[in-house]
């Protein structure tokens, strides 16, 4: 496969995943806005808005553009703003452009799917959004992302194109889960507490779970109240939870190992080491030197893996293939 194709497909998958994440964060903020006043709604609401911007890495650029963080500016920025690379508009545009450029490398069904999603968002505006209803629109976005993953699964031959799409999806997903964990636990310095100590905290935690669509999963696995320590454990160690760090890094490891065909041993080792530490570790020792430093270390190892993939497969030195 062409190096350029590999790069475009990897980014295409990342953008689709990002669209999904943005929709979930907006959806949560919207839910919070519907809570009764006495639950500390306004504080939680503002937190969920700024938290969403933080998790998408665009808080500063938002503040550079808008004076006040209110619902309309928040939604405008995250849904329609063409200058915001994390907006739903921008991510779908980028994914569709990659798809258009690489339509030979993906299945026709995949291109038609991303193209029709794009055509709809292109024609959507603030009035259209109000007419349709925000929850309906966000549901649609999430369904589009899910449909694209499903169509990929069901129609794309398992060649390198598939592998690079997988790598893009899981790097973006791991990155997103890390950002969410950092947002909720990064400031605590020590380990997450065993019980939620206020209603506000309960909402923050359920927000976290909903933002990765794992609220029901949590209930199913723990059959217990929502506790910070258990939520952290689930999102780090549980490899059966699709958006946990263990699940994402294991998927990255498998993809990279298959791609390497016995080459790039150092890169494969890095992927394997990270995956097994997260999968077979325990929270106490992982968080021994503080939650924040643990998350930073995983983030930097993930970046190193991402750089390694670029160096070996996307911008390799010119050597004639045997």
């Amino acid at each position, binding site marked *: *496969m062409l190096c*350029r194709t590999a790069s475009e497909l990897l980014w295409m998958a990342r953008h689709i995943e990002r669209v999904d994440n943005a929709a979930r964060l907006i959806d949560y903020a919207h839910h919070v806005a519907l809570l009764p006043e006495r639950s500390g709604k306004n504080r939680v609401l503002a937190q969920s808005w700024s938290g969403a911007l933080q998790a998408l890495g665009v808080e500063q650029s938002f503040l550079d553009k808008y004076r006040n963080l209110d619902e309309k500016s928040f939604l405008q920025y995250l849904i329609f703003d063409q200058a915001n690379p994390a907006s739903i508009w921008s991510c779908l545009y980028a994914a569709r452009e990659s798809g258009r450029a690489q*339509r030979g490398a993906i299945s026709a069904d995949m291109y*038609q799917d991303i193209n029709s999603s794009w*055509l709809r968002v292109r024609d959507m505006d603030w009035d259209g959004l109000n007419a349709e209803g925000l929850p309906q629109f966000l549901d649609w976005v999430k369904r589009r992302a899910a449909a694209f993953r499903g169509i990929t699964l069901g129609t794309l031959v398992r060649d390198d194109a598939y592998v690079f799409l997988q790598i893009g999806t899981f790097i973006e997903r791991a990155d997103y889960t890390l950002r969410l964990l950092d947002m909720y636990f990064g400031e605590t310095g020590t380990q997450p507490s065993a019980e939620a100590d206020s209603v506000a905290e309960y909402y923050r935690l359920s927000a976290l779970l909903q933002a990765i669509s794992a609220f029901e999963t949590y209930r199913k696995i723990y059959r217990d109240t929502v506790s910070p320590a258990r939520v952290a454990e689930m999102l780090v160690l549980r490899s059966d939870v699709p958006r946990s760090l263990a699940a994402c890094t294991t998927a990255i490891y498998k993809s990279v190992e298959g791609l390497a065909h016995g080459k790039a041993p150092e890169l494969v080792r890095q992927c394997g080491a990270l995956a097994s530490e997260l999968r077979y570790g325990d929270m106490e020792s992982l968080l021994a030197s503080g939650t924040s430093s643990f998350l930073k270390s995983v983030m930097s190892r993930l970046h190193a893996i991402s750089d390694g993939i670029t160096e070996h497969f996307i911008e*390799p030195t010119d050597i*004639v293939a045997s």
Partner: protein
Amino acid sequence: MHADENTVRPHYREFANWLGETSAARLERKRHEADLAFHRVGITFTVYGEKSGTERLIPFDVVPRVIPAGEWSMLERGLRQRVQTLNAFLKDVYGEQRILKSGLIPPDLVLGNTQYRKEMCGIKLPEDIYSHISGVDVVRAGDGDYYVLEDNLRVPSGVSYMLENRKMMMRLFPELFARQAIAPVDDYPDALLDTLHSVAPAGIEKPTVALLTPGAYNSAYYEHAFLAQQMGVELVEGQDLTVVDDTVYMRTTRGLKRIHVIYRRVDDDFLDPEVFRKDSMLGVPGLMRAYRAGRVNLANAIGTGVADDKSIYPYVPEMVRFYLDESPILHNVPTYRLRNADDLKYTLEHLPELVVKETQGAGGYGMLVGPASTKAQIEEFRARILANPAGYIAQPTLALSTCPTFVESGLAPRHIDLRPYVLAGKEVRIVPGGLTRVALTAGSLVVNSSQGGGTKDTWILEAD
């Protein structure tokens, strides 16, 4: 479609019957369905001069253009003959130059032509083929004969519309295909791949083919991606290729991989900055070295533009006699060469009746259609001709075939032309069909999509 107002030509009878049974509302619904499907599938082209990235659909008309078997077999023989001749001409002008020595064509017309690439002299090409893919634009005139408007031998486009229009018609109106035998066109990508394989450098058993595109913002990018996918070859840009030891490689995730045949959809000027335009970012430095060394083949060859230049066009019938010793099957449109004083004088006196074209223009840009132009437009063009008479040719407007076409007011006759695609490698192959372009404005003769023309499916009947 009609011989006169009251009779339907026999090969259109089945379609006319069907049309009679089909309600206007159903047709309208189908037209709408076609538009939606073209958008979703993303069959678009980019219009030059508009904001970059503006994608448009080429209007698709649901009324097919039908050609009976007998007419097609004559056309096919004519196309084969014409493309063989043009390839022989290209081999000659980059080799022995017999035709120039014979005095049949003034040497300066060829050697002084901007499309003549002296870098091609002395290169031996596989099978002696220069134009592997030719799109020959023909029209059927009132007398029932076919005339060649121009020979497109550089990077002819539009074949994806031939294939997609057929797919669309079969999807919209499957019952029509059950009513009569229409020759299939879907083997074109296979035929193209075979042709490209057959002209690989000598001694290569399993050649690797790639399609070179200028990139996703080129007007014909959809077609490039479509053909690459249909043939199962890599779609590459200049930046994906590199030349090492006069050998062309593409950069893959597993290292450099050699390429033997490049179906290039990039113009000569941009192919190799070492030889042609130095500022080209679309090409591959060193490509010409590899080509000259016979380590890679290009389809079409560099320098084919000298054979489809409008100043050379008037000589093609003579060439047929010269190279093949046959009489030409397809007609040329009578052409006034404005480099000749007599022709210039006649043309200037008859501008309102004539079509005047730049010898090196393409795509319907830079032409005057006398009968459809205002006095002011004609006068402006007169000044341009006088400034450089040799840069123009003039032709009478033919009484072109029309075909019923859906327009705002319902079905109405509109002028059409036809671009069949001729593949030349070890053998010459022509898929029975082509791209029918239709002028959507009443009376207009300009069918180019860049000028608002549309397309139709083209049916070659398997019986008369």
